[in-house]
Every structure is written in C-alpha cells, then in structure tokens.
C-alpha cells in the first residue's frame, strides 16, 4: 500500500478525515478557535438583550463563559446564538434591571 502521509500540521479546511494517513502529525491542530462547533443547542433558557436599556458596561462580556456576547467598537450588539449555552450569568450580573433577562426555552 502506498499512501500519502500527512506529515504536516495542516490548516483544516474540513473537520473530517476519511483515512488514517490524513490525520495531521501527532494529531496537532491549527489553533483557530472552535466557533464553528455550535453549542447553542445546549440552551434551555435564553438571554434577552434589550438594546435600549443596555449601558454597554461590558460586565456581561467579561463574565460570559462562551464569548457569546457580540461586541463592536466598545458596544454590545447582541448574543451569538450559535454559542450561547443559556447559563444566565449575563442576566445575573447585569447591573441594570431590564437590559439582560432570561426567558424560558432555548429557541430564538
């Protein structure tokens, strides 16, 4: 059998390896983050962000375990629903009454 062995740490363009010889050297991966692995389906509760109430203090952002608080130019822009597991820390820690609240059900 002659096979082309993957002797590199390949930039992954796919997340499946049909054969053993395509496994990158030592199973080493390119560190590119795992935002394409969606954990949004874990959610049984969902945070509701109220843009009008939000002071953009970023408390939710620093405590969010999933990096699911979307920010742009120092302002919160929404929730990354593909990642949010619905833990509710954001709502629990939010200093304002109605800026971040939890709702039952994971579906948006």
């Amino acid at each position, binding site marked *: 059998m002659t096979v082309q062995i993957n002797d590199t740490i390949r930039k992954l363009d796919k997340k499946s*390896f049909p054969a053993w*010889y395509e*496994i990158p050297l030592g*199973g080493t991966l*390119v560190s590119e983050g795992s935002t394409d692995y969606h954990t949004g389906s874990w959610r049984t509760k969902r945070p509701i962000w109220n843009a009008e109430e939000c002071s953009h203090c970023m408390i939710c952002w620093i405590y969010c375990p999933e990096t699911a608080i979307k920010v742009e130019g120092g302002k919160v822009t929404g929730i990354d629903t593909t990642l949010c597991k619905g833990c509710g820390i954001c709502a629990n820690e939010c200093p304002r009454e109605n800026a971040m609240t939890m709702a039952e059900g994971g579906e948006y």
Partner: protein
Amino acid sequence: MRKTIGLTGDGAAAEAMRQIDPDVVAAYPITPQTEIVERFAEFVAEGSVHTELVTVESEHSAMSACCGSSAAGARTITCTSSQGLALMHEMLYIAAGNRLPIVMINVNRTLSAPINIHNDQSDSLGSRDAGWIQLYCEGAQEVYDTVIQAVRIAEDRSVMLPVMVCLDGFVVSHNVEPINVLDDQEVKDFIGEFRPVINLLDTENPISMGNLTLPDYFFEHKYAQAYALEQSKAVIAKVDKEFGERFGRSYGIVEGYRMEDAEIAIVTLGSMVGTARVVADDLREQGVKAGVLKIRCYRPFPIEEVAEALKGVKAAAVMEKALSPGAPGPAVFSDVLGALYHKGLHVNLISYVAGLGGRDVPAKSIRKVYEHLQKIAALGKVDRILNYLDLRGWQ
C-alpha cells in the same frame, strides 16, 4: 580532529551529547546513568555546550520537560535508567504520540523489587510498546556512534518519533574502552540543524497539541503513529549507512556474525552479543557451525532481517536479560518467534533468560546454550522452550 580516548559507556554517551550540543537536556540522576548527567553538567559549567540543562526533581518531570522543550522546537536529549524509565512510562507514550523527536539514552538496569542497581534489560524491554525507536548497543563505541545517529533518525521528517539508545548498565556504562571520537565539526555536520515541524514558539502560527481525541479518530491517530515507527526502519538503515560511509563504522539493523552457514545460532542484544561472538569463534575453531544474530534495532522489530538470518539454522536460542512473567515467552523471544511465523518459517527456537539483576553472563555459560542447541539440532526438535541460564536450582 578525530582521536582515540578511554571512555566508559556513560562517558561516551556524554561525549556524544557534548558534540551534539542539544538545545535542552532535562535529566535526573540514577545509578548507573548518573555519570552521563554529571559529565554533561561539567560541560555546561565549563561552557563547552550551549545547552539549557534542566535539573528536574524527578524522571517524571525530566520526560515532561523534554516534551515541553521538544514541542517548543528545541533539540532535546535526556538519559535515564530502570526506575527512572518506569517513572517516565506515562510520558513515553505521550512523547511518541505527540511525535516529538526526543533522544534518550537508557542505561539498562533491572526493576525493583527487590531493589537492585545492576544490569538487565527489564526496563527498556518493558517499555517496548511505548512507540519509541529502540536501539541496543554492544559496547561504548557503538553507544557513542548511535547517540549521534539517533538525533538524525528522530528528526527525520518521515519519522518524527523519539529514539531510545540502550546500553547495559555497568557492563558497558562503567567499562572504560578505547573510543574513537569524531571531530566536533564532523558531528555537527552529520546531524545538521533541527528544523521542527511542531513548534509552540511560533506564536504567529499557533497550534494546539495533545488534544483530546475520542473514539472517532483515536484509532487513526495511533495507526499513523505506528505506521511511522514501522517505516522508520529504512531511515535507521539509511542513517547508519551514511554514518559508515563518512566515518567508517556502521552497525546495521541486525548483524549476523558468522551466520552465513551457521547451523546453530544465538539471537541476542546488548552486551551479551560480544561474549557470544567470542564463544562462536571458539566453537568454529572446533568445527561447530555456530553464529550470532545481533538485534541492534529492537523497535521497530526487524521482521524480515531476523527471519532471513535464521531461515537456514537447525536451532536457535534467543537470549535476553528480562522476564515476561506469565507470557508464553519473554519479549524478544516472542518477537523472534512472531517474525518467523510472519515468514512462514519453522525454526527450532528456544528462549534463554540470562543475567537478571546483574548476574554475570560469562563465556562458559553461553557455551552451555550452544551445547543445548547442538543437542536440539541433532534431535531435530525442541526439547524445552523456556530456559533460565545459571539459575540456581533450575535443571
């Protein structure tokens, strides 16, 4: 300038390490390896190497630090023995699985209990499935040459696996012999620069290594690693050949000594090979067609070479300094048997366990093994498969 000097096996290993001048050495002292670390620490103190010597707090941390430094793209060497190798056991598998080209000199010493500081090969033979290349040396010159070769083998792009260079404790490690030492520059040229494929320090191109791998890919990962080990035989042979062409000394994967027309043969590894040569010479003078098959490269196991060398003999004995309690036979014996089966050969093969815990294996005892083989050759069949040389009360 090449020169011949008197060095112990440990001293020869340390001298090779000095010339390799690795980036990192992380090691912990243990008898009978200690002299290597001590000598190397002298080189560090006098500034004759540029190495970062990490004097870790255990062998466990020695191999761990070696994994770290090798993963950070540094050429890394360590050395150990016996209990130290056992303490490293977990990380041996990790070093191989992470494809880190670490070189380790293992001075063969038995494993407790009972505690004993002397030579046998239980330690490294017990680590045979860790995924390391294992090379066994007969004497100090071979230790020196093999340590240098090991760097090239480990770092070969198609190999990228750790290499263990084994030498028998005290018998080789503490025996002073004349060693032909190469010129520093010759060694540097031979090993070349280390160009790591895996490099944690390349922060522009960050990598994640040592990732959890679940049932979906674990098998494929391990097979890729095993395949690399199997294929490394060609690289080991190539490097040895090139070494021979440049410096006039080479050893092969296996070496058949007077095996061309041998009717009886001893298959062994490490220092016992030397004594077996002497006994074979004596027997040849008496008209007995005796030979020796030296296994230098034990992992990957040289299936073809061993089968080819033994196919014509009437009887052969595998001598090794280790037990495999409860197994059908000790490790090397089982491997030789497996190699013969692979090639569809039936050879009258017996096992001799010898020299445990430093028990001397003198020429007269090896002669007894050949006498046993003569008996089997005459009989045409094996009378007893498992045998124990110079074991009190064993008949």
